[in-house]
């Protein structure tokens, strides 16, 4: 089941999350919903990201594949132009760079779609609260037995309203 707590202040949310985590709720079971990015202090609800790594790997993969591909293409059909070598890094450098960047762009975008959960809904049936301007809603997934304790934690932190919802 899900609990959805509505908060008005960022501090209250941070408080509630800390209390819930102390009570055994993992960050993966919590989601914040708001109409704008909420910056919480470090350690409250971190979302570790590998997007930079993905971007770098995508860049390396595209760049080296493109260069290797051009090497193969030019050796496969040897045409001399302007006395240049069949393959040279000078003449290929620009394409290597552009494809490296394209790899970074593609990987970043793909990773964004993946990490944000837009293409990979964790639990499809989870209720999505309507985020009103100014309000922050905290959705917690918990077992029915743990619900009273979680509700208590949220209320003490300053939740304006708490709603119990089941899978849609």
């Amino acid at each position, binding site marked *: 089941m899900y609990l959805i707590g509505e908060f008005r202040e960022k501090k209250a949310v941070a408080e509630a999350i800390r209390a819930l985590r102390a009570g055994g709720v993992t960050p993966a079971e919590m989601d914040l919903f708001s109409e704008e990015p909420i910056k919480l202090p470090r350690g409250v609800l971190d979302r570790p990201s590998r997007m930079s790594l993905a971007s770098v790997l995508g860049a390396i993969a595209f760049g080296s594949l493109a260069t290797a591909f051009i090497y193969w293409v030019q050796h496969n059909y040897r*045409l001399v132009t*302007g006395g240049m070598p069949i393959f040279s890094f000078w003449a290929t450098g620009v394409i290597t760079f552009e494809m490296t960047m394209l790899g970074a762009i593609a990987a970043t975008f793909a990773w964004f779609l993946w990490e944000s959960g837009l293409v990979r809904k964790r639990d499809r049936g989870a209720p999505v609260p309507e985020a009103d301007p100014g309000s922050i809603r905290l959705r917690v997934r918990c077992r029915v037995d743990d619900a009273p304790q979680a509700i208590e934690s949220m209320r003490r932190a300053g939740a304006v309203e708490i709603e119990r919802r089941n899978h849609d």
Partner: protein
Amino acid sequence: MEHRWGMAIDLDRCTGCEACVVACHAENNLPVSSPEQAGKGRTDHWIRIDRYYEGEFPDVKVKYMPVLCQHCDDAPCEPVCPVYATYHNGEGLNVQVYNRCVGTFYCANNCPYTVRYFNWFAPEWPEPLHLQHNPDVSVRVAGVMEKCTFCIHRIKRSKQDAARDGRALADGDVQPACVQSCPAEAMVFGDLNDPQSKVSRAAGSGRATRLLEELGTKPKVFYLQKVK
């Protein structure tokens, strides 16, 4: 490389009669521009006679210089083509594949000799010239670049003839149309790989210079003139 074709042009002999230009037109199916288009500079001559004037009228000296594709060993036009429409073949010729050309104009911009010509419109010939096309040479469509080929079809024909007769290709067997028609015999064509050929000897003479040699394009057309 079996052959390395080159040409020598003796500027001291050239009279600027333009017989080579006419011969080239007839040989290579060059379209005939209308007077209006010619006025705009849209003429199509794979070989042209550049005129340089020295002195003031009436004491003028005119120098003629036949300029054709120099078939550079390091041709600047080749690497810039995105579709390999122009590249270097095994006999040192700078070849143009009309059917592959999409018309980016880049080669023509990068040719320091300005010897590349473009088909601005579909080619036209005034009657009865349309009946005298050379069957060995393709007619180019609108939108492609073209230029001197050193009469590559004649090179091929000569090689075939020599092979059929079971003999080696001799010096002078291949003659492009311009060389053949030059009344002053100012032009020589042949194999630069053969040190005994006429063109090799001309290229080795003290009178030989190459056009815009300082660019490092390594042209294979040698101009002979008295060094003052």
